[in-house]
């Protein structure tokens, strides 16, 4: 049982830092606690009822879905495009492949500063360029409505995370045998056919894990949203993590925030189960089951 012994340090570490806090969170969701640190009475499911009946809950769930889908879509498109480009032969390819990762290695705060500044209307560079090119006649308010703020935030967040995905996809492309492409070339398959019939299936296991982990990462994004819009304007970017933070630390309803957190975790768990059940690659010829 050497294997067990080797896994156990990490397993115990995660138990202490995740399982135990989850347990206290669930406990908290049944207590009537207000400000962090005050005591609370057991109130059964009252917190859950109030959360489910509040006006903010379902719209926030909806926005989280939009957030995850938007990020997933944009990052996939960006990462695939970048990976295909960087997979072509050109001089300086190794260099480009290294530095494509740049946005991912800078702290969120830096990304926030630079994008907020570039997207501003008092001399923001993006508006200035678009105006000069004649693409727009009037300055765009990138954060001025709920929808535009959501779109801008999805863009900023995707800019930060697509590089990692690009590298992972590139790595996956390396793993696809050249013979397959050569054979397809002989058969006269078009570039698009090669992409859909060889590249995509070959990447399926990687895409599966990145789809799963990427979704879990992005649904939990808090700092970019909170530091730029605070969930606004008009709650247009109030996703679940922001709502929960709001409830806990600005509305001083810790118990209710815990209940909302548990509900969100439940929704994410359901999604995960469905994702694994429907999309897990099953490869008969391999003893490991794909998504490992």
């Amino acid at each position: 049982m050497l294997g067990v012994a080797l896994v156990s340090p990490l397993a115990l570490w995660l138990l202490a830092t995740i399982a135990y806090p989850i347990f206290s969170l669930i406990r908290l969701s049944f207590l009537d606690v207000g400000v962090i640190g005050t005591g609370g009475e057991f109130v059964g499911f009252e917190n859950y009822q109030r959360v489910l009946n509040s006006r903010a809950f379902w719209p926030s769930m909806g926005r989280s879905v939009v957030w995850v889908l938007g990020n997933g879509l944009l990052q996939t498109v960006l990462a695939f495009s970048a990976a295909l480009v960087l997979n072509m032969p050109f001089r300086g390819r190794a260099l480009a492949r290294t530095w494509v990762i740049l946005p991912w290695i800078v702290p969120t705060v830096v990304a926030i500063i630079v994008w907020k500044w570039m997207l501003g209307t008092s001399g923001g560079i993006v508006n200035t360029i678009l105006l000069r090119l004649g693409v727009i006649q009037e300055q765009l308010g990138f954060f001025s409505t709920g929808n535009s703020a959501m779109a801008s935030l999805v863009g900023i967040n995707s800019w930060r995370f697509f590089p990692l995905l690009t590298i992972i996809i590139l790595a996956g492309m390396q793993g696809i045998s050249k013979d397959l492409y050569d054979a397809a070339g002989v058969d006269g398959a078009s570039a698009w056919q090669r992409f859909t019939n060889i590249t995509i299936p070959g990447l399926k296991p990687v895409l599966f894990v990145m789809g799963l982990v990427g979704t879990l990462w992005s649904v939990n994004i808090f700092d970019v949203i909170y530091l730029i819009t605070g969930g606004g304007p008009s709650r247009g970017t109030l996703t679940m993590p922001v709502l929960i933070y709001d409830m806990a630390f600005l509305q001083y309803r810790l118990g209710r925030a815990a209940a909302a957190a548990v509900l969100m975790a439940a929704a994410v768990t359901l999604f995960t189960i469905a994702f694994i059940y429907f999309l897990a690659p099953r490869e008969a010829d391999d003893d490991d089951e794909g998504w490992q």
Partner: protein
Amino acid sequence: MTEHKRSAAIRYTLVTLTMCLIIAPFYWIYSSSVKESTEIVSLAPTLFPQTFTLTHYANLLSSSDYPIYLTNSVVVSAATMAITVVLATSAAYGLYRLPFPGSKTLYRMILLAYIFPGSLLLIPLYVMLSSLNLLDTQLALIIINVTFAAPFSVWLLKAFFASIPFELEEAASLDGASWLQTLLRVVLPLASPGVASVAIFAFITSWTEYMFASILIISDANRTLPVGLAGIIGQYVIDWGLLLAGAGATTLPIILLFVLIGRYFVQGLLEGGVKA
């Protein structure tokens, strides 16, 4: 223009566009951070600096504890990296080279640690760390960062460990090598690009972490770079010069680090050819 030349032109255009999307914001930070304040906020932004000054960087150094933040970030990230590498390598070795009943389930459970978002765990973790007297210590940040870096690291290592033939290990054990000797002398050297990638992944995860660092650290002496940078944003006044210098100086160390080791991170992943 020949077919060949045309396709080359298209190729380089695409590469340039891609790299512009990546690099342009950084160019904008650095080129603007050396402009005079009035040029920075001018309504007609200048693509190339018309003025040159290092005042903003001087301000940054004289008025904030940038060197302290930098040291703290390096210490926390290096420790996170070290612990993550040890824990993840050992776990990955156990899971992929010495499978046991339930190892696949356990592996999945580890990856699913990401179901529970940091923002939800903030409250209970705060209470837990405070009862352990770890608030305002770098150890607290290290503990948290390892938690969020390790699961993905285990997955990254899989491709490397899975690609090593079992025969090599068997040969080693026939020679009388213990499991530890086998791990250190046979398996790890072969998986070294993967270990390097994991190390860098953990380092970056820790380097960019903001939320926990902002709540768990109280005194200025223990602050990390992202939180220190957020501190100079200021509540009432935006000093764009200082802010851009701060953004630039926060990014610089990691860029330098990547100049040295960046290719190992990317090459490590590429050579391993993540097979999943």
